[in-house]
């Protein structure tokens, strides 16, 4: 089956001499919900920028649904919808005009564009604001406007660069639901995000990019299985003066009512509860200390830390 996105040996060196991408290979299957993660400056936006024709590649091949961007750029673009990281619409234009004009660029006549615009503006809760100039919208509304604009030509591949940056939790959850629905309906989605909770909640496959190289490209399930240690926070019914001794586990007192317990891969949580019960400590609730994917991500990026330091030194 043709990949929604296929990248081979992609490199990018900017005019300043900065090597942003050092030969990236990436494949995203049709229908996938894919996350491209990495620290700031790792090469995420450059990669997506090349796919969307906003950045010129130095070398390598990129194809969208089998259409090579070097030879069939127009066909590749027809399949692509893009939601950039920063607001990039004319702030003085009205919401409805922004969406229908974008459809016009794809050759969609105004009548048909108006129907599609209405559909997505309604789905994203912006229909009431259709005659409002974009500059009058809140940050969250502006983000949703960019999603509506990216979808107006019904692309098969939707690329979102930090789609929920700066939006409140409630709105973020509703955007997640919307994106999940789009994905269920067959749209392949690629997103970059700094909220690893977002990637863990939405995505099936994940690639981690650092220093212009893909350091990991696997399924979320496989990635999470590599997690060798998880830290749990246990809320106790009674305040404790000191952390109890738990055989085989490291245990700290986070607060007089909160115990912090490290559980290694292969260890059973039941053992923790049994030992606590033997010591007459009752647990009323439990949660993980940090997002699991976040821990993995930090660990992987930290593994590259020496080279990061060398690079910074080199630049200075």
């Amino acid at each position, binding site marked *: 089956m043709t990949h929604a996105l296929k990248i081979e040996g992609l490199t990018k060196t900017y005019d300043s001499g900065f090597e942003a991408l050092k030969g990236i290979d990436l494949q995203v299957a049709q229908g996938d919900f894919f996350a491209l993660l990495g620290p700031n400056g790792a090469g995420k936006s450059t990669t997506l920028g090349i796919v969307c024709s*906003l*950045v010129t590649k130095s070398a390598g091949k990129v194809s969208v649904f089998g259409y090579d961007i070097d030879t069939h750029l127009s066909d590749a673009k*027809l399949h692509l919808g893009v939601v*950039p990281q920063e607001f990039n619409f004319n702030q003085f234009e009205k919401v409805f005009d922004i969406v229908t004009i*974008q459809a016009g660029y794809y050759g969609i006549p105004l009548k048909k564009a108006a129907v599609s615009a209405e559909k997505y503006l309604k789905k994203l809760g912006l229909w009431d604001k259709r005659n409002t100039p974009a500059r009058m919208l809140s940050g969250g509304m502006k983000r949703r406007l960019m999603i509506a604009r990216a979808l107006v030509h019904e692309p098969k591949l939707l690329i979102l660069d930090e789609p929920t940056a700066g939006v409140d939790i409630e709105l973020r959850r509703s955007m997640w639901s919307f994106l999940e629905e789009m994905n269920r309906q067959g749209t392949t989605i690629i997103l970059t995000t700094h909220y690893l909770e977002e990637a863990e909640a939405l995505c099936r496959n994940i690639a981690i990019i650092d220093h212009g190289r893909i350091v990991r490209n696997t399924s979320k399930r496989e990635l999470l299985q590599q997690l060798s240690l998880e830290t749990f926070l246990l809320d106790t019914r009674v305040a404790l003066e000191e952390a109890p001794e738990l055989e085989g586990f490291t245990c700290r007192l986070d607060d007089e009512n909160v115990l912090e317990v490290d559980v290694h891969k292969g260890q059973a949580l039941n053992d923790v509860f049994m030992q606590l019960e033997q010591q007459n400590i009752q647990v009323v609730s439990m949660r993980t200390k940090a997002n699991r994917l976040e821990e993995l991500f930090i660990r992987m990026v930290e593994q590259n830390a020496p080279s990061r330091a060398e690079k910074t030194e080199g630049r200075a």
Partner: protein
Amino acid sequence: MNAQALFTAYSTIVLREIRRFTRIWPQTLLPPAVTMTLYFIIFGNLIGSRIGEMGGFDYMSFIVPGLIMMAVITNSYANVVSSFFSMKFQRSVEELLVSPVPNWVILAGYVTGGMARGLGIGVIVTLLSLAFTQLKIHNLPMVVVTVILTSALFAVGGFINALLATKFDDVSIVPTFVLTPLTYLGGVFYSIDMLPDFWQGVSMANPILYMVNGFRFGILGVSDVNPFVSLGMILAFIVVLSFIALKLLARGKGIRH
């Protein structure tokens, strides 16, 4: 994209441009009307009445074609350079870059938008001039072809300026230091017959001289240069500048990293 889709994309750009400059009409349509009315009153009526005839016509009649052309040139140029540079500045140009619109359609759309404003202003200034003098058209096809081609030429010029500009200062440098002097020295207010031989020769290197005189020939039937040479010059400039604009677009100059 098929022909119909290309036309839809083209008309989308054109309509967006027309909507833009009509929405901000106090900045785009009103100022040239006021400025040209002042030219008509001061140079045409007050000073012109003491100058007497030029090229066989009273001074007001002589300068009207040049002033119309000056308005068309500056507004065709200004529309494209300010609109496209604003899109670059706001990054809304990315809306176009991610879409499948070919570069030549982008150029054609912006040039047509610039022409719509330039020619629209040309009509406004012509109507205003009727309050000061009578216009008798000597050769209508010559008038129409010259003004349309000139407008297209300067719209392409504005597009190149917008691509190369990296800051707002760069947008005003060419109109202020190149276009305005060339227009004023391009025979808008005088016939180059009045100049010494040396400066007549220098004036012949000014492309705007050919446009003003081609247009003046169409209206008054008098010209300092052969009007068909004027048309040839304008066409040649359009071809060369369009080629440069398309090359810059293909390289992503100023719009892609």
